[in-house]
């Protein structure tokens, strides 16, 4: 990913900046120009909570080239409190510890480095909330 494209997404990737539709209440992550549920263009900025749960997960054994050093790694669909959903890695845990509905928290981590000439990219990953 080139740096202009990466830089534009920093508010979402670093701070989970999102939107709530002022008419119907639907939460959009990342932000967009029109609500997909009711077509309202009145959307207010919100910050997503970092707590949520795993809806489903997989362990990637055959990775894309730019993740080749990390495989195998866990990818999950996470539903955050309030209902927003996203896809991210789950780290610092063994796949055996995961289950549907497992409680997780998003943390700020290094995601990848596309090539030696490229920028190091950061964003959110999930960790298990234990105990």
């Amino acid at each position, binding site marked *: 990913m080139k740096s202009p494209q990466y830089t534009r997404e920093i508010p979402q990737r670093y701070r989970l900046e999102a939107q709530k539709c002022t008419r119907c209440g639907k939460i959009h992550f990342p932000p967009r120009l029109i609500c997909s549920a009711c077509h309202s263009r009145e959307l207010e900025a919100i910050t997503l909570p970092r707590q949520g749960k795993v809806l*489903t997960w*997989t362990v990637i054994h055959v990775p*894309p080239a730019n993740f080749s050093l*990390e495989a195998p790694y866990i*990818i999950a*669909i996470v539903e955050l409190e309030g209902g927003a959903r996203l896809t991210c890695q789950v780290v610092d845990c063994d796949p055996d510890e995961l289950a*549907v509905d497992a409680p997780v928290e998003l943390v700020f981590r290094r995601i990848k480095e596309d090539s030696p000439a490229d920028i190091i990219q950061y964003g959110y*990953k999930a960790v298990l909330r234990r105990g």
Partner: protein
Amino acid sequence: MRDVYVIGVGMTRFGELWEVSFKDLFVEAALAALDDAATDRLDAMYVGCMSSGLFVGQEHIGALLADYLGRNPIPATRVETACASAGAAIRLAYMEVAAGTSEVVLAGGVEKMTDGADVTAALATAADQEYEVYHGVTFPGLYALMARAHMHRYGTTREQLAQVAVKNHRHGALNPKAQFPFEITVEQVLASSMVADPLRLLDCSPVTDGAAALILASAEVAGQAQNHPPVLVIASAQATSTIALHNRPVITRLDAVQRAAEAAYKQAGITPDEVDVTEVHDCFTIAELCVMEALGYARPGEAAALVEAGETRIGGRMPINTSGGLKAKGHPVGASGAAQIVEITQQLRGEAGDRQVEGARIGLAQNMGGTGASCTVHILRAVS
């Protein structure tokens, strides 16, 4: 709107065809379709192709392929909806004939995947680059997320997923054009290498070179056809859903497939149980189950039991993927939707040989892109 008929079909062999170029693949399929229709007339063409830019470094393929097919100056347009590209090309060709703009239109698809490109990265462009692929997910990974959710919600088993691949290879073994014309066992699927847990290598469709083409025509032209009985297109529908899998209300429910199917049944004036033979987009074993449920062939969570009972085999109550499906026949992504309708047309003509479904009168083809964000459904009927 006028009636639209399929009067000719053609396809290349599917496989790793290193000796054949991108252009020649398409032209070979198109010539086979023209010969099958016994016509030399074409008024326009639509070519489905997911990613010639990434796979072979070539864009602007409408004009290119019209040139190499010797058809300049007819209008020629490339259509892209990821792995549903050919289905979308067929829909546009259908509408052009139905509208009365053209009498004879070629619709097809082509993909050349083995010329050395990074296939995983190219395929991943069909998902949300910034919010899915960014985090390291692959296409098998996205379908694995669906598989895990299906297993958790409905109790679908690992063995039941394997049975989809076993059934499709059983059919593919009867198809001389198939990339993998041989049978496999449940044990082999379960012992194959892990790609994205719970999906293993033999749950996944392969990387394939290939092309397929159809000739669509008005009733007047179809009435003059000599070689084969024409087949009537009784529905052509398309729908979309969210690009990111995580934004679907139910992860295992393919909303675009459901919408396209409902529209197609309405156009055709039929119910799902009237379909005699079906081709579905089994890019991964779990996809075939989710598609069956979205098409209304089974209630949510009940598709696997039908596969297990043999209902979806040739000879069963609802034969699915008689060609071998994407799994055994091969999956040249931009061509698969056209190859499905090649199979359905041959079935409805009674020309499917060892794979023939006895008395097949109505056939359905379902083609999708990404994790189902694009879907087309076509329904065809034998005329004679």
